[in-house]
């Protein structure tokens, strides 16, 4: 067994005890969404059963408790990523909304003709399309950091690319290649050129110890459902002075101090960016998720995934040799547990169909990264992705099931 996570960890996740097509489930799609530990499910059920009330505006006891549950979760999330203050944690619907918030609010106030936003060719659509939309509206240029053949950022011409750039947007870990990007280096380069750095940490925060201050980013977004939390809750972290200076995103209740017939006064951060009744139970669930992950220890989570990724790369290469290619960096330490596979010329959708009959859940498709897929010269990949509850038996099941795909499509 790899690393030092408890071996019975699967028992924490009720869904992992079910079967699919008469076989025990082998869940290898955590890059799309993670399974949820009982601690998270219970926290949400207990919240609804014993605390449920709207937050912030009630003087009665359970309203105060609901508010405290929500704000306690905010503090837990702030600690989890080492934010300087809980006020820097803005709750959003998901990381997609977090990035849209920055594009709309900060971008709307700061970007115009002659400016540029620099993103990478390995971004998820969530960190591309908001900039396309704003570029069309505000008339700035969207520029791209290219990739090396082994799926890393090609930073050779970074200084030239940064000319005129006001914001750099980069994923901390690719959801297709698993590549871990040099965020600190990008932060320093961006700041040296007078630009800010936005980090899409959707695939990073769930898997590695995260210290937003040490990373040097200005904005960093992540999404609850990929880190043992529920769907419907995400986070934008940003330095307080940036949030203070930004105009509101959505308008409505909660985000105001005062409303008159001729205008309004926005609330303090982070509430300024949280219009309407928040997803309170989901926030409570996210709080429970970060407590659960902290209990495991993020260092150990990372250690577990590095050794399991190494085992997977070794196993697949021993079993399938050159018939199976895993995209992205070959060294486990330079990547996360995301294995985008090309298996001979069997189409990824057919691979995942055959695997499904074995109870093995992998995702086939473009993984919301079409510019990257074009760069790789493929329409789709079959992606297996690992998390805390996976172990070597899951990798063995994957390797066994692949054999049937090979037989069915052998000619």
């Amino acid at each position: 067994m790899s690393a030092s996570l408890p071996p019975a960890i699967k028992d924490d996740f009720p869904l992992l005890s079910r079967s699919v097509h008469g076989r025990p489930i082998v869940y290898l799609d955590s890059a799309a969404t993670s399974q949820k530990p009982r601690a998270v499910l219970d926290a949400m059920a207990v919240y609804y059963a014993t605390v449920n009330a709207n937050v912030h505006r009630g003087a009665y006891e359970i309203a105060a408790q609901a508010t405290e549950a929500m704000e306690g979760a905010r503090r837990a999330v702030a600690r989890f990523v080492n934010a300087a203050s809980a006020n820097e944690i803005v709750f959003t619907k998901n990381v997609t909304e977090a990035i849209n918030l920055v594009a709309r609010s900060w971008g709307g106030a700061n970007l115009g003709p002659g400016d540029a936003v620099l993103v990478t060719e390995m971004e998820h659509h969530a960190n591309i399309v908001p900039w396309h939309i704003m570029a069309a509206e505000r008339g700035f240029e969207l520029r791209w950091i290219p990739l090396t053949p082994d799926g890393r950022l090609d930073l050779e011409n970074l200084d030239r690319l940064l000319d005129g750039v006001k914001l750099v947007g980069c994923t901390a870990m690719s959801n297709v290649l698993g590549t871990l990007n040099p965020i600190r280096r990008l932060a320093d380069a961006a700041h040296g050129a007078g630009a800010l750095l936005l980090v899409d940490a959707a695939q990073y925060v769930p898997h590695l110890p995260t210290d937003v201050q040490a990373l040097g980013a200005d904005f960093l977004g992540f999404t609850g459902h990929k880190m043992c939390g529920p769907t419907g809750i995400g986070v934008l972290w940003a330095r307080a002075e940036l949030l203070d200076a930004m105009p509101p995103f959505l308008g409505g209740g909660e985000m105001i101090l005062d409303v008159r017939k001729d205008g309004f006064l926005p609330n303090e951060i982070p509430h300024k960016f949280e219009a309407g009744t928040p997803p309170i139970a989901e926030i409570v669930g996210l709080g429970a998720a970060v407590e659960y992950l902290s209990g495991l220890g993020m260092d150990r989570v990372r250690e577990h995934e590095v050794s399991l990724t190494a085992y997977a790369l070794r196993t697949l290469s021993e079993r399938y040799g050159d018939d199976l290619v895993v995209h992205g960096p070959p060294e486990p330490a330079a990547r996360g547990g995301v294995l985008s596979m090309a298996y001979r010329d069997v189409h990824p959708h057919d691979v995942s169909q055959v695997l499904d009959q074995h109870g093995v859940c992998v995702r086939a498709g473009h993984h919301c990264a079409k510019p990257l897929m074009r760069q790789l010269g493929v329409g789709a990949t079959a992606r297996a992705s690992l998390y805390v509850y996976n172990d070597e038996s899951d990798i063995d099941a994957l390797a066994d099931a692949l054999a049937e795909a090979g037989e069915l499509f052998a000619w």
Partner: protein
Amino acid sequence: MSGLEDLYREILLDHYRNPRHRGELEVPPAVRAEGFNPLCGDEVIVYVDVGADDVVQAVAIGGQGCSISQSSASMMAAGIRGRPVAEVRRLVRAFKSMMSIHSHEIGGEAEDDDEGGGLDPDDMKLGDLEALRGVVKFPVRIKCATLSWNTLVQALDETAHP
């Protein structure tokens, strides 16, 4: 693994291995239409050349995708060449009716199919296309099977002779 045999019938795999009418046609006289399946990145390009007599003179298929989308496109191409457009449109309806989960659920197996799915009364011979019937049991793959057909309709709608 009985389910997989329902899906990956031998005829289907044969069309996947040896796709018919792959290539391009000159535009014009042919019309070109592109279809995407955002779910899995499948991409089909359909060229049809409809003559003045409203008969499909030539058809060609481009693009890339999974065994279901590619074999369906190949069978479609083989099935429509030389047929009048009106007949092709009826074939499209018959095929899409076969691919409808709705009619499948209502009719159970086979015979009641024309009840729920709006299958054309003067029944079409689906021939090889019957091999795709198993796809209905795999609902996420229905979009793969119908991709080229929807793209064909797009192309036909763009031709000068409807």
